């Protein structure tokens, strides 16, 4: 497989690829490489932080129906701390995992089945449900999501009772999770909400079906009439070809191009509609020739997480104060586990505003190089970099307390000529003017050149 295509594949199903691995793969065929990706992601490794403290509180409670305010506050306090831990663990997982395709899919699904909850136990369980079904069957996936404690809380299915239906979940199920706006009627929402009455959970976060609050009786949904359950409703939704189309379009926009190509979508829908097997449609997409079209390469704006994880992958970085990693996510506009609302992050150009662009460009140097970007001209002496760097370090280089592993980077790029580094770090064509400016600068070292490249708008593309 061509180097260029390997890099493109890995930028989309992961966070990029380093030279050593790229060379290793370049002798293999596309088919083998893609096969290996799926084989490596067969396994599901749950992401977990230690929540025994909370579980212990649950166990010790006499009456699980009533939590007193003190206990509630205690649980909330632990939960907040653990959510930060989970966020960091998730970033670390993304930066270093053999199951890269599955993990990238989890990130995708987390912005599809959008959910937020204060309880670490529920949200951790939810997150691992995403992981479990990420490459599985879409119908099983939707059913599992509809029964997740965090989701029944988030979209008020818990409050959806036959005496007083709450349509929140039914609406988002169709609008955001399966069909897209305009492909159902208000009556479909009302009727399907009845089918999801009784969906709830217990304290431990297990699904509970409350028969007493469930609406028994006929519902009319998409022209069919019957005493439908929630599972029946999902079955009927998936019978609509629009559902397959909606999901394929979303996958396409995330993995291929923000601009839809109807021909490609209809080819994907033909594969997906048959059995809603996510792995199969992903395999089809990644194997197709159009996936590697020039117009799809290096044309997407990285999400904040893609940017951060990509940096960490190239130059391994440990935050001595993990809260700073959360802080950076907040400044960049994407804190894992904290979506803006149920429709998730909009992505693309929406990541960019005056603040985030400035931070994105300055972040690589601040994290990895004492905030210093070399501007040394061809004829200047390399030594002056060190004195300048000291100056920067004192001024703004200490803003983040991180440990960086440049040795790892240097090993990875040992056999890469300094001029060729950009082929590994930059996904798109570098703007002509920028290229001219870069070539007027001295290539002091691989590290300094790497920082110069990472500080370009071009580095924001994948």
């Amino acid at each position: 497989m061509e180097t260029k295509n390997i890099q493109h594949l890995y930028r989309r199903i992961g966070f990029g690829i380093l030279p050593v691995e790229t060379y290793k793969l370049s002798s293999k065929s596309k088919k083998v490489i893609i096969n290996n990706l799926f084989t490596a992601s067969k396994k599901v490794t749950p992401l977990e932080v230690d929540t025994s403290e909370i579980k212990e509180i649950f166990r010790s409670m006499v009456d699980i129906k009533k939590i007193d305010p003190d206990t509630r506050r205690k649980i909330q306090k632990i939960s907040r701390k653990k959510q930060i831990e989970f966020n960091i663990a998730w970033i670390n997982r993304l930066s270093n995992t053999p199951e890269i395709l599955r993990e990238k899919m989890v990130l995708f699904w987390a912005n599809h089945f959008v959910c937020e909850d204060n309880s670490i136990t529920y949200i951790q369980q939810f997150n691992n449900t995403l992981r479990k079904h990420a490459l599985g069957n879409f119908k099983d996936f939707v059913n599992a999501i509809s029964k997740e404690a965090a989701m029944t809380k988030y979209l008020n299915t818990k409050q959806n009772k036959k005496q007083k239906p709450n349509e929140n979940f039914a609406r988002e199920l169709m609008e955001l999770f399966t069909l897209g706006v305009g492909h159902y009627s208000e009556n479909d929402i009302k009727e399907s909400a009845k089918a999801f009455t009784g969906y709830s959970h217990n304290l431990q976060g297990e699904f509970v079906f409350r028969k007493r609050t469930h609406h028994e009786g006929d519902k009319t949904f998409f022209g069919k009439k019957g005493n439908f359950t929630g599972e029946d409703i999902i079955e009927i939704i998936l019978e609509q070809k629009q559902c397959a189309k909606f999901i394929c379009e979303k996958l396409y926009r995330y993995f291929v191009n923000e601009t839809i190509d109807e021909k490609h979508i209809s080819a994907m829908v033909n594969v997906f509609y048959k059995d809603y097997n996510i792995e199969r449609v992903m395999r089809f997409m990644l194997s197709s020739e159009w996936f590697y079209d020039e117009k799809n390469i290096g044309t997407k704006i990285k999400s904040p997480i893609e940017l951060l994880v990509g940096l960490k992958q190239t130059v391994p970085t440990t935050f001595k104060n993990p809260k700073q990693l959360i802080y950076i996510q907040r400044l960049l506009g994407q804190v894992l586990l904290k979506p803006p609302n149920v429709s998730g992050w909009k992505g693309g150009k929406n990541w960019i505003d005056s603040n985030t662009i400035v931070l994105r460009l300055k972040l690589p140097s601040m994290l990895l190089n004492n905030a210093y970007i070399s501007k040394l001209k061809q004829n200047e002496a390399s030594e002056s970099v060190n004195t300048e760097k000291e100056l920067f370090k004192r001024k703004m280089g200490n803003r983040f307390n991180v440990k960086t592993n440049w040795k790892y980077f240097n090993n990875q790029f040992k056999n890469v000529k300094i001029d060729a580094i950009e082929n590994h770090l930059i996904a798109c064509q570098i703007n002509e003017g920028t290229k001219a400016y870069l070539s007027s600068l001295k290539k002091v070292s691989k590290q300094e050149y790497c920082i110069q490249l990472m500080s370009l708008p071009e580095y924001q593309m994948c």
Partner: protein
Amino acid sequence: MYTTYVVTRISNVLIMDRRKFLKQSSLASSLFFVPSFVRAFEEVASNKLGYKRLVIIQLSGGNDGLNTVIPYRNDLYYKERPSLAIKEKDIIKLNDEVGLNPSLKPLKKLYDKGYLSIINNVGYPNPVRSHFRSMDIWQTATNSNEYSQSGWLGRYLDNFGKQPYSAIEIDESLSLAMKGENVNAIATQDAKSFYNLSKDPYFKNLSKHKNDAHLSEHNLGYLYKSMIAAESSAKYIFETSKTYSSLQEYPNNKFGKQLKTTAQFINSGLKTKVFYTALGGFDTHVNQINTQKRLLSQYADGIEAFVQDLITNNTFKNTLILTFSEFGRRVKQNASIGTDHGTANNIFVIGENLKKQGFYNNMASLSDLDDNGDLKFEIDFRTIYATVLNKWLEVDDKKVLNRSFTQLDFI
């Protein structure tokens, strides 16, 4: 809209007598260099010719409106809040029925001067009691069952703002309210560090070398454009705001600092129409009294300093301050001497030229509640937005709110 505004102002200036004209222009570095020529007069214009500004203050977490503006003669208030009601003797009385939380003494002064208008019972149909959802609704100005990715002030920017810095949030990140479909406002707490972050000569050189031919509407072109816009905004905000420093003393807390920065931006003549800032922590489910007391003091003391600062600099008359919270709280106190999430709430409008000073409308009924035991709203918050857009910022409110709302007459 903005452009014509500037043109009118320049033409106003041109009618000015020639001597004054030359005197003021000499401040600019070069008389014949057009940009500084324009800038010199814009600075004059922005203070003298009524450059109106809107300051929004968000009380995050759901401030308990009923313990903020208190119906101290209403028996139901004391009955529903046996250990949470504020004692009549502590209440700052505004009239025979209603008084303010003891922490709000500075607001009483504004009230007495006619600088405060309290709009009671503001909310929206089918209220949502989730913080983030309700906040979204307030910030996007949509119906409670609609989702929008742009905020109302962002859409104001889209349609009527000229530059990203036409709206500034004094905070570390940007609220949804300030995000438009095409233009986003600036968020900064500190003009200097924003400028420092952006001013690396490396980026300046990239901007200089930018090759337009290859940077069309594509994503990469968008990044370059954003980079250049950010650089110039950061520079403009920093260099303009540093020309003025306030002598006013502010309370030494985050909110006080944010207001101080806001005043500095306003008084330095920054061409910004909208400022946004927030004070959080109002989610008082437990032991509400002390928490709310502390927060309302921070709010009122900050506002007092802010208003004084603006008055000193003759900018108060052109500034309107709007304070809101995403919802009020339940009428009945809960078991932890706190309150749970509720619905309608009061809004404070502060300014010099208010049409309806004091109370805009009556207090909410405490006997006619909804099924949850919450207030039934009377005034849709979007009618307030529409009024502010139309009568204060003087733009077509329908373009921003995407539909027509009744205009109120508080300004």
